[in-house]
């Protein structure tokens, strides 16, 4: 059967729809539906409702709406501003102090959440408006929020690593340990970049700036500081699962917000409403991705790609580079877990056979697909962030680009210096 005509029609349809300003979620769904028709597999569309249902019926997502809600409540209830005041009184003397605060907050957030999108949604809600209020451009505030959000799934706990470990029979504890140094390195690099931009673009901060006094700020921030203590302590010391910790964070954010006198029933309802809309936007995207990944799996696109690659005869270094390209592309084009599920089983066994360390390989792959969260066409973090901060998606892509490039350079270092990822797992006797 000749697919040339139907495929070109789909491409034209997609281009027209793109230009007309179609929402990405519906566009992915519609293109996938047309592909079912074009390749004569339309009877398989009968799986779609259940497919969509199963995609959403997942325990793994549970922490996400709760963290979005907690973030929104913290923002409305003055938690964010209390924390930011405190951080300002510490970091404020530095140029670009709030940029540093943003990165450091993401490091703390990473210890709580396994997801970059949750980080971006929560901090996009609270820190970006705060940075704007203090004189940063929305572009820069959003860019550093997006760039630092991917620390979330690199520093443990990490849902991507758990998923990868389960799929590829890799020791998850070792993966967790292996993620810590790369995550901290990423944070350090982002802070260095922030310092550079702060001086180049004359960001707020500096000795003569009007800073909140330290002690009153600290006292006011104590309830707010309890939140990360509850969440981090709760999960790291084994009192709660992440979803439970997120639930407790919601409760704590409500109580603290009422305590600060900034949150009433109206505010809580608005928070819930906003969380519902954001969750809805996310869910329709997940629905569309479930449709797309089904037709891709059915047509065995991943396997077809693999057989092409096998013909190239690459060595270990070349193969690692290829893995970078593939998983970066996969992370760009689809859901993170779908990317792992589709491509890891295909490309990982060959890498292991070449003697590449499984833990190192896993971290390289996880780092890769999280970088894909920041890149077009489907950078999930930036998609969510663009709706949260109301910034044009492509503009957000452009302003985040320097950070993304730096992150990719760091990825290259991690790829070719396995010692960075392997040091901690080795020291802990996990490999």
């Amino acid at each position, binding site marked *: 059967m000749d697919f040339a005509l139907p495929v070109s029609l789909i491409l034209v349809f997609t281009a027209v729809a793109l230009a007309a300003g179609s929402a990405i979620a519906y566009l992915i769904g519609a293109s996938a539906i047309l592909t079912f028709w074009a390749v004569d597999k339309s009877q398989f569309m009968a799986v779609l409702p*259940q497919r969509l249902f*199963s995609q959403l019926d997942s*325990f793994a997502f549970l922490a996400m709406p709760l963290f979005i809600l907690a973030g929104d409540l913290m923002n409305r209830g003055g938690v964010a501003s209390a924390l930011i005041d405190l951080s300002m009184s510490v970091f404020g003397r530095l140029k670009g102090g709030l940029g540093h605060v943003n990165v450091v907050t993401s490091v703390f957030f990473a210890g709580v959440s396994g997801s970059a999108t949750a980080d971006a949604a929560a901090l996009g809600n609270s820190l970006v408006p705060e940075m704007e209020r203090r004189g940063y451009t929305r572009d820069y505030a959003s860019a550093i929020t997006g760039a630092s959000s991917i620390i979330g799934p690199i520093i443990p706990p990490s849902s991507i690593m758990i998923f990868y470990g389960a799929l590829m029979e890799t020791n998850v504890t070792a993966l967790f340990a292996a993620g810590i140094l790369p995550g901290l390195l990423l944070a350090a690099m982002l802070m260095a970049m922030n310092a550079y931009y702060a001086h180049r673009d004359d960001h707020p901060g500096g000795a003569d700036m009007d800073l909140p006094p330290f002690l009153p700020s600290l006292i006011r921030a104590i309830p707010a500081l309890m939140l990360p203590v509850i969440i981090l302590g709760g999960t790291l010391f084994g009192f*709660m699962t992440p979803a439970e910790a997120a639930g407790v964070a919601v409760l704590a954010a409500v109580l603290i917000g009422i305590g600060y006198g900034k949150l009433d029933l109206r505010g809580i309802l608005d928070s819930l409403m906003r969380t519902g809309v954001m969750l809805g936007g996310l869910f329709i995207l997940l629905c569309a991705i479930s449709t797309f990944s089904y037709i891709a799996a059915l047509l065995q696109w991943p396997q077809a790609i693999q057989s092409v690659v096998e013909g190239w005869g690459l060595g270990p270094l070349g193969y690692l580079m290829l893995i970078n390209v593939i998983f970066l592309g996969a992370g760009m084009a689809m859901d993170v877990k779908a990317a792992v*599920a589709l491509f890891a*089983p295909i490309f990982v066994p060959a890498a292991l056979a070449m003697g590449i360390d499984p833990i190192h390989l896993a971290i390289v792959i996880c780092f890769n697909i999280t970088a894909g969260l920041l890149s077009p066409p489907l950078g999930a973090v930036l998609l969510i962030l663009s709706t949260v901060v109301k910034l044009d998606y492509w503009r957000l892509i452009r302003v985040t680009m320097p950070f993304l490039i730096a992150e990719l350079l760091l990825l290259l270092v991690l790829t070719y210096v396995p010692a960075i990822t392997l040091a901690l797992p080795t020291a802990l006797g996990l490999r």
Partner: protein
Amino acid sequence: AEIKIAMNSVDDPANSGEATFAHGFADALEGTDFTVEIYPSETLGKEKERLDQVSSGLLEINLAAASTAYSVSPVLKGLTLPFFFDSNEQLDKIMSEDMMMEKASAPLLDLGVRFAGINFIGTPMGIHNAKKPVSTVADLADLRFRALNPEQLNLMEALGSNGTVIAWAEVANAIQTGVADGYFNPPSSAIRGGHTGFLTNYTPADLFPSTRAIMVSDDWYSSLSEEEQGQIDAALEAGLEANRAWLAEWTTEIAERQEELGVTITPLAEGERDKMIEMAAPLWETQVSAEDFQLWTDAKAAAE
């Protein structure tokens, strides 16, 4: 004609009982008009989706979790009766009894699914924990185990231990942080989940066999010619043989693998399994209907 086999595990015949079946099946069809495509790692969907697809003829063969099979055919819940089976071989004999296959097949066939038998995915379930070697039932008293469902919770309590329901995605976190101390699973789950780093104690208690149900689309099978049906039947048989051959090798190697990963294996002390059987037996008749339990008991007696 193309045959799609969908499954949960990765396509790795060395380590996966599902993949050994799939490849054994595919190899047996070489030289026929059939081509076999394997869809591993849930690429065609999770359990319920694959059940839907095989029942509606969109998918030819599905390797389903036992829980998926018994959600349709309750008698198969007997597959998870704790301490009911002495060995995988015994289960094989029980399942080959006509009365068992007939009772198990009927509700599945109503749904458009032919039940083609049981596939093993490893050694039977044992007791993993992060705290201490367990050799007696009394050792379980101060441990808290992750339970998959209410049935497992009941079992843990019946054994004088404690359970807490935790989703699989949260297990690693929960155990490392002490929300739970361990779980009941086959060793392969701990290895695949990467949990052996902290679940350093294992007791092979042979709780119940680790199985999958082989489901064949009835719409598709019925549309085949008699000759083709014969080819498929022979290929299914070959797949099962490949799976049993893999299982024998896997069973002899698994302890060595666990030890390489730093797991201490502690066998149950003399007479302890009998104690556990006694404690768990009251659960049998709550887990399946009285009629189904009678069937399992009869089939077990007939298989002796």
